[in-house]
C-alpha cells in the first residue's frame, strides 16, 4: 500500500458534493502535483484529508501509512504525520511564533508517546531551521503570522513543516501571493525537505511553482475527480493549452 492511499473519496460541504470519487496513490519519496481549474475541488481535498470541520465524507477511504485518516480528529491526523501548508495561514495574535511552534511540536510528540523536547534542544533546532529559511529571531518572537508579509507567512509554513517532520505534506497553493524571490526561498525550503521517507502533494493552479519544485507526477483535477495523470511534462502541456479543455479558461 502507498504511503498516502485515497480511494473513491466522496465529500460534501453543506450537502453540496465537491469530491466525487477521487482516487490517488502517493508513495514515500514521491512528489505529486495536483493541478486544475478553479472550483475543481483541489483545496477541498486538502481540507478533507486534514479533517477540517464542516466537510463530510460520504464514501471512500483515505489512509496514511495504513492508518485510517477519516476515523481521526484533526489533531490526531497531524500527530499521525499529516501536514497541511495553508494557502492562507491564520493569524493568532498574542501567541509568539516560538511558543506556537513549541506547543505544536510537543503536542505531537506527546500524542506519539515521545518525550517533550527540552528547551535548549528545541531552541537549537528552531534556530537552525529558521536560519535556513531566512527567518529572523524577531519574526519568531512576533505573534503567529501577525503582521507577516505574504512571503513571511509562507516561509513560516515551511518552517513548521521542517520542524514537525511529517510523513505526508500537502502544500495548498503555496505559490500564491509570492514574488519570484520569495518563491525561490520557499521552493528551496520545500526541496530540502524532500526525502525517501516523505511524500508531498503540491496543489497549484500554475505551472511556475513546478519549475522550482519539480514533481514526479502531475494530476489534473476536474469536477472532484482526477481526470488525467502523467509525468512533469503534463504541467507544461497544461501551461500551453490552459484548462479550456476542462470547461474553463486559464486564469
Amino acid at each position: 500500500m502507498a504511503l498516502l492511499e485515497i480511494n473513491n473519496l466522496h465529500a460534501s460541504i453543506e450537502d453540496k458534493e465537491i469530491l466525487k470519487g477521487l482516487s490517488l496513490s502517493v508513495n514515500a519519496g514521491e512528489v505529486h502535483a495536483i493541478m486544475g481549474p478553479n472550483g475543481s475541488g483541489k483545496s477541498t481535498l486538502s481540507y478533507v484529508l486534514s479533517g477540517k470541520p464542516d466537510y463530510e465524507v460520504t464514501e471512500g477511504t483515505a489512509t496514511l501509512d495504513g492508518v485510517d485518516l477519516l476515523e481521526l480528529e484533526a489533531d490526531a491526523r497531524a500527530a499521525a504525520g499529516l501536514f497541511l501548508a495553508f494557502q492562507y495561514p491564520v493569524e493568532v495574535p498574542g501567541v509568539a511564533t516560538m511558543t506556537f511552534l513549541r506547543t505544536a511540536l510537543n503536542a505531537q510528540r506527546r500524542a506519539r508517546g515521545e518525550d517533550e523536547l527540552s528547551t535548549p534542544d528545541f531552541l537549537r533546532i528552531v534556530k537552525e531551521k529558521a536560519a535556513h529559511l531566512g527567518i529572523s529571531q524577531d519574526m519568531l518572537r512576533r505573534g503567529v503570522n501577525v503582521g507577516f508579509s505574504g512571503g513571511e507567512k509562507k516561509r513560516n509554513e515551511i518552517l513548521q513543516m521542517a520542524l514537525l517532520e511529517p510523513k505526508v505534506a500537502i502544500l495548498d497553493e503555496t505559490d500564491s501571493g509570492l514574488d519570484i524571490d520569495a518563491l525561490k526561498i520557499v521552493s528551496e525550503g520545500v526541496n530540502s525537505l524532500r526525502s525517501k521517507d516523505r511524500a508531498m502533494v503540491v496543489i497549484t493552479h500554475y505551472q511556475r511553482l513546478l519549475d522550482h519544485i519539480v514533481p514526479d507526477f502531475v494530476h489534473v483535477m476536474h469536477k472532484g475527480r482526477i481526470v488525467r495523470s502523467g509525468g512533469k511534462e503534463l504541467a507544461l502541456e497544461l501551461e500551453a493549452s490552459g484548462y479550456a479543455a476542462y470547461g474553463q479558461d486559464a486564469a
Partner: protein
Amino acid sequence: MPAVQETVDQVRSLDVDQYKYGFVTDIESEKAPKGLSEDTVRYISAKKNEPEWMLEWRLDAYRRWLTMEEPTWARVSYPKIDFQDYYYYAQPKKRPQSLDEIDPEILATYDKLGIPLREREALLGIENPSRPIAVDAVFDSVSVATTFKAELAKQGVIFCSISEAIREHPELVKQYLGSVVPVSDNFYATLNTAVFSDGSFVYIPKGVRCPMELSTYFRINERNTGQFERTLIIADEGAYVSYLEGCTAPQRDENQLHAAVVELVALKDAEIKYSTVQNWYPGDKDGKGGIYNFVTKRGDCRGDNSKISWTQVETGSAITWKYPSCILRGDNSQGEFYSIAISNGFQQVDSGTKMIHLGKNTSSRIISKGIAAGRSENTYRGQVTAHRRATNSRNFTNCDSLLIGDKCGAHTVPYIEAKNSSAVFEHEATTSKISEDQLFYCLQRGLSPEEAVALIVNGFVKDVLQQLPMEFAVEAQKLISVSLEGSVG
C-alpha cells in the same frame, strides 16, 4: 461536530460543573440571627468588642442604607435580593488565640485551597523562600490567621485583621477608614459599612518598601451567609506594597452574597499594587446558585507622584459588579487598571474602572480583556474624567473582548469626560471571536481543541497576565485554562 461547537460544549460542561473549590468544611459556627436590623449591627459590633465610635459609624450607615435604592444601571439581571434572608455574621465557634489553636478543619480547608497558613509550611511551600508571602485568611466573617506578623512588625509594617486594627490602631483607622469610599457612597458600600465583619488592614510606614507580598484569602463557607469584608491599605510617604487577594466559596444551590469594600490610600511618592484572583463559585450549568459579587474598590492617590495599580483576574461569581477605581488627586500621580474577566455558563459580569483625574500631569492606563463563553454576558464599563484643574492629564484605554461560541455577549460602555482642554484621552476597543479557522490551524499542527483554546486565550490576555506578581501569574494562567479548557486529565 465542528471543533468550536465541541469546545464550547466542553467548556459548558466543565467549568461550571467541576468547580474544584466547591467543598464544604464541617465546622461549628456561631451566627447572628438571620436578617438585618439595628440589632444585627449592634450584635456584630459587640461580637468584635468595638469602641462606641465604630458602632455609631455603623448605625449611621445602616440608617442611610435604609433610604437607599439598589442600583439597576449595570447590565446584569437577577431576582430581587431579599436582604432579610441572609445571615450577616458567622464565625467559627472556637476562636483561636494563636496560630496553633486554629481548628484543624479550617487549616485543612486552606491547605486544600493551597494557602499554607502556618509559617513553616508557608516557607516550605513557596518556591523562593527569600520572598515569602504573608497571608491573612478570612473564613466567613472573621479573620482566622495572619502569618509573618512579627517579622513585618520589625519594619514597622502593620498587617492584621481590620477588627484588630480598630482595637489596636484606632487613630489610623479613624483617620483613613471611609475616607476613600464614604459612608453613603453607594448601596452596597453603605450596606458593607453597616455590617462588615472582617477584612485586612495594612499600614506601610514612611519610606518602607514592604519586604514581602501581602495576601488575603477569602472563603465563604456557611450557607446563606453574606460576606462583607472591609480592607484598608495605607502606604505612607515613599512606601511601597504589593497586595494579593484570592477568593473561593463552596458549591451551594442558593446565591451567596458578597459585598466588599476596599480602600487604598497612597500618600506622596507611595505606590500600591493590588492584585485579585477572584474565583467565587459561578453557579452550576443551569445558572443555579453562585456568588453575587457587589464590590466597591477604590484607591486614592492622595499625594503627589503616587501610584496605584489594580490587576484583576475575574473568573468566578454568578454576578460580578465591580469597578476598581483610582482618584488621581496628587500631581503627577498614576493610576492603572489591568483586567481579565472571564464569563462562562450563565455568569454575568459588569466590571471596569473609573479614573478620576484631579491633579496636574496625572496619567492613567486601562487594559481590559473580557472573554465570554457559554451563555454569559460580559460588559466592560469604564469612566475616565478630567476635572478643570487637571492640566495635561492623560489616559490610554484599550478594551478587547473575545467571544467563544454564539450564545454569549460582550459589551463595552465607556464614559469619557474632559473638562480641561489639555487632556489627552485615547480609547481603543475591539471585539473578536475565536474563529473556526484559528482553531483548525492549531489542530492541524497537532494541538488538541483544549490546548488550542487555551493558547489563543492566553495570547489574548498576555498583556494583563504580565502585570501579575510571578507567583500569581502562574496560578492565574492555570485558572484561565481550567475555566475554558475541556479535559484537564
